[in-house]
């Protein structure tokens, strides 16, 4: 007799879970292809460049994994705080603080202590720095109910300012430079694959994602996190310390973002400059969203986002497309991923009513 549109949340189906991201790629590529035509580049060669830069060649694949490492660390952290009902928009700032502290420790001690010890100290500093930076927002939220989105955004801005200052002041490489930067870091995270520089950061990220999964679903702490996130009133009633859960899950989230900062400077760049902050912390929010705040889902989503990132970056070098164009394409794919995720998580169907 008629048709009606129904929209309602639905349980995860593994099938849709895999299909949705693929569909979003396909859609984004179609639109991106049209854009390339318009920009005067043959889409076929454009896309083969994209794939070379991300999946089909060995260096491309390594690049994808290097990027995925950062998404995995930050995305897992964000997933954990989301599960506790706290939205950590501050991964970017926590990552910057982690990178600064790791650089600082590395440069201060690399000539004094053994490389292994220096590395360990630098990574610990990155982790603690990120955790403490996030805890500022956590404490404000947990004890004074100050909105965490506002505070983390402010803290991001502040972290970036500190970064700008530190590479022009205390950590400046003397002499004329193209742009302000720190002195080089001589130590490095263990390298897994020398030609690309893929390093132990990936192992750390995978281990932490798997540990987080265990933490969330198989431990007492994870139980408290999930109860608090799904109904804070119930958590209080059950005798959980809600403020503590909020502060600690924020700290955990920040610690992982801080480690990402440490991995970036100690494993990939080996110096510090403003360019470490390119919004990966914000992209990681989408990573955790696509993964539905599931740490194992974050592993998959990170590799997907790493592919997009490195593929679109290579597009720029391989064709005459500009940096902005490849960034636009990257953004476009993220957008499609977001929209299809919605379709995957919500049942939107046309129902025939007899």
């Amino acid at each position: 007799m008629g048709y009606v549109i129904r929209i309602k949340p639905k349980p995860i189906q593994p099938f849709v879970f895999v299909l949705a991201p693929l569909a979003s790629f396909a859609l984004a590529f179609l639109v991106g292809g049209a854009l390339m035509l318009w920009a005067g580049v043959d889409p076929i060669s454009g896309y083969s460049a994209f794939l070379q830069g991300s999946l089909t060649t060995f260096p491309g694949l390594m690049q994808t994994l290097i990027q995925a490492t950062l998404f995995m660390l930050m995305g897992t952290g964000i997933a954990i705080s989301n599960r506790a009902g706290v939205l950590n928009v501050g991964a970017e700032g926590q990552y910057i603080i982690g990178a600064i502290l790791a650089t600082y420790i590395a440069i201060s001690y690399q000539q004094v202590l053994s490389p292994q010890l220096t590395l360990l100290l630098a990574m610990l500093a990155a982790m603690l720095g990120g955790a403490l930076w996030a805890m500022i927002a956590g404490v404000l939220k947990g004890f004074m109910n100050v909105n965490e989105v506002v505070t983390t955004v402010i803290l991001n801005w502040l972290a970036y300012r500190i970064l700008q200052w530190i590479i022009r002041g205390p950590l400046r490489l003397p002499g004329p430079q193209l742009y302000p930067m720190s002195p080089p870091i001589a130590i490095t995270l263990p390298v897994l694959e020398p030609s690309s520089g893929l390093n132990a950061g990936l192992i750390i990220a995978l281990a932490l994602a798997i540990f987080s999964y265990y933490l969330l679903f198989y431990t007492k702490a994870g139980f408290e996190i999930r109860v608090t996130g799904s109904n804070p009133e119930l958590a209080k009633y059950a005798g959980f310390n809600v403020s503590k859960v909020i502060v600690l899950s924020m700290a955990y989230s920040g610690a992982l973002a801080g480690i990402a900062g440490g991995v970036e400077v100690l494993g990939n760049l080996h110096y510090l400059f403003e360019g470490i902050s390119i919004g990966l912390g914000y992209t990681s929010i989408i990573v955790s969203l696509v993964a539905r705040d599931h740490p194992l889902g974050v592993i998959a989503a990170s590799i997907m986002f790493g592919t997009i990132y490195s593929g679109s970056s290579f597009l720029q070098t391989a064709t005459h497309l500009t940096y902005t164009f490849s960034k636009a394409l990257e953004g476009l794919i993220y957008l499609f991923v977001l929209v299809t995720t919605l379709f995957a998580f919500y049942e939107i169907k046309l129902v025939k009513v007899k």
Partner: protein
Amino acid sequence: MSSSSCDVVVEMRNIVKKFPGVVANDNVSLKICRGEVLAILGENGAGKTTLMNILYGLYLPDEGSIYINGKRVIHASPKDAIKNGVGMVHQHFTLVDDLTVAENIVLGAEDFKVYYNPGKLIEKIREFMKDIGLYVEPSKKAYELSAGEKQKVEILKALYRRISVLILDEPTSVLSPIEVNELFKTIRRLKEKGISIVFISHKLDEVLEIADRIVVMRAGKIVGELARKDANVRLLASMMIGASGLSSIEEKFEKNTSTGRKLLEVIDLWVKGDRGEDAVKGVRLSVREGEIVGVAGVAGSGQKELAEAIYGLRPVKRGRIMFNEVEITGLPTVERIKLGISYIPEERVRYGVSLELPIYENIYLEKIHSEKSKRGLLEALGVSPLKKRVMLEYAQHVVNKFGVKTPSLTTVAGKLSGGNIQRLIVGRELERGPKLVIASEPTAGLDIAATNFVRRTLVDMSRRGVGVLLISSDLQEVLSLSHKVVVLCNGEVMGVVIPGEASIEDIGLMMTCSKKMSIEEVEKIWAM
């Protein structure tokens, strides 16, 4: 009145609705006549709410159709239902606390604009209320209202949308007898205006008082229909349960006669409410081992604040709380849980469950504190592993004992019917071995069999030395189970009575602050 000879407003034909693991409505057909009160009765999980949610457009039926005034309609959302004159007041309140009554009433209706004149709106709503003959001060904020007033606003909200059929899903479960009477007056007035009312309730006496026609559901089907004049309590009960297996409908309970030492003592307790007002004013009460102490009062007389203060959820302004002769006034909730205090909260969906978490985790909840891991470091870090098998086994035991109807233990709690959520909470709080149970509206929303079961369990527990503080708007329940009853009005103790020794009239007067016992009289009863 029978549905075959009446002016049919709504007709639902052959409705089928399936959820994973259950058929909530199994080929149900129902007619609603103009200006009648149609009661729907049935056990917890029988499918009453589902059927009405379909009429209100919250669910589409898998099969079947709806006719309004003889015309085929599709209710794909409540908007469609309201357009066709169907309104619904749910089991749980839906008002926005920080908005005024007037704003709450117009919220979501077509003529609510971003820019409006609050004064004018309030006047307009005042006029509307006078037309209807149902009044709640429109300038009050929703959080200032008592349960009875909130109920009225929910009804006004529906009526404002010019509906001709009003569905009330268990509207009386937390109302005191006085408020129930008010509600019935309203229902009769609406009936005179030609509005049809669907009334869902588990209380047979209420149904017999207000309904014109009664429909009984069991396991998703309609199993009987009666005019009020043909109905009686016994008949209805046997229709609901199937066999005539119900021994007695209003079970009588033998109270425990040997009470022990003082378990809980509350001394000159002052507690603030959500608005900063004094909600509990100088309350003094005690509960002995094996004793059931009732708290009677109109909803919103400070019962909730009192219970929350004893459980450590709300700070105490002045006074002391003693448990087993040790002061616990400042202890966090977790310590009180470990001491053996249980609490069945009154707003079950808000405080009692996480709708997104599976049933077994909802049941295990506080028992997590009693787990002692041998691995001290993991314990200290809070990452000691959950024992999923133990959790599942325990949950299965509670589900069986308290008859929680669910397809599986891993189903999320949000998929349970209202009464089954209540069974889950009651089971969880009574099964974890408490020494003291604070039971707020423990039988709200439960069907007759489950109500009797919970009451019997409370009495059995008292026999084993457990103390119970029983807070209920159901005066009959309080009087039949308790050794002593504290009557609250406006946060103050108006008196303490022994059931059977005080008249209902006196208790009624105390509940409305019209009578107060002297301190000597009260002390005499506490000393008994």
